[in-house]
């Protein structure tokens, strides 16, 4: 890897390295302070009027729990909606993982399948290769600087190692959904305020609408 995170001198070829190194890991050693809500995009009225919405996984789950704030509910009714394949995968794995013989499975799985049947494949969008490379770098930086997820195996028990890996995957998915929305010219709607706050530090030009339940 080129030192200091710079692209290879003189090279104008687009490489995975160039895609990932949009964010130099050497420049990030300390966590970002959490911002007050007044500094974050919580106002639906401030959104550009002509952009579709892409929904974070939190939105689908909160809708199924009847926790969506009325202004967000109305906005989703009014705007074209794109669905990120990563969020759809998170819903699908949640449906697939449940034990068919367990007494409560139907209660949890049926609403998830109803949601998946409501999503047209034509409205689904997947992150492109550049977003994957960038999301990986972002997730790595945030895991280390923001969330304390860069502990060595020896410092952790086996259960904690797995938990750390799972938390990193969650961060990767958050970054993928965040970047996918930008790639497809959509406003990301999310109730995941803490993670989107720090992702916006890296891509402050991204169109995002946050809410709290």
């Amino acid at each position, binding site marked *: 890897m080129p030192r200091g995170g710079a692209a290879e001198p003189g090279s104008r070829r687009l490489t995975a390295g160039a895609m990932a190194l949009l964010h130099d890991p050497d420049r990030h050693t300390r966590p970002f302070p959490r911002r007050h809500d007044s500094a974050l995009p919580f106002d639906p009225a401030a959104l550009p009027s002509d952009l579709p919405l892409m929904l974070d*996984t939190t939105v689908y*789950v909160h*809708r*199924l*729990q*009847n926790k969506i704030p009325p202004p967000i*509910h109305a906005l*989703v*009714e009014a705007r074209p*909606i794109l*669905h990120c394949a990563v969020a759809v995968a*998170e*819903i699908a*794995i*949640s449906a*697939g*993982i449940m034990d068919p013989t367990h007494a409560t499975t139907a*209660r*949890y799985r*049926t*609403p*998830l399948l*109803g*949601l998946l*049947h*409501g*999503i*047209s494949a*034509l*409205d689904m969008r997947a992150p492109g290769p550049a977003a994957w490379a960038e999301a990986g770098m972002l997730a790595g930086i945030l895991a280390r600087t923001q969330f304390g997820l860069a502990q060595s195996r020896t410092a952790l028990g086996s259960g904690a190692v797995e938990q750390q890996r*799972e938390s990193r*995957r*969650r961060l990767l*998915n958050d970054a993928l959904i965040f970047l996918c929305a930008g790639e497809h010219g959509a406003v990301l709607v999310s109730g995941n305020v803490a993670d989107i706050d720090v992702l916006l530090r890296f891509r402050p030009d991204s169109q995002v609408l946050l809410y709290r339940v």
Partner: protein
Amino acid sequence: MPATNRPGQTIRRLASARTRGERIERHVAAALAELRLAGAVTGTRSQRISVRVDPGVMRAAAARLGLTNPSDVVNASLAVAAAPDRFKAWWAETHATLPDDFEPAI
């Protein structure tokens, strides 16, 4: 044009908008499939209508749909407008609920 011209018979895609055109074509096809399921498609273009439209909107619709024939543009636009949006219907109407303790698997 025959009174029973079948939908999509004269649809031509603009070569310059191939990838996007394919997506739109699938969108229109999906809309027609939804309307067929709902029993709304008769399979003929038997109703003649005479309407005035904003030429700018007509041009924009033709460009978006990748179509040149005005009849195709109107038919495709009507199909997309009339097709039920499953997600919006789900969003507005679902009564299914997840318990508060639900967490996505990842």
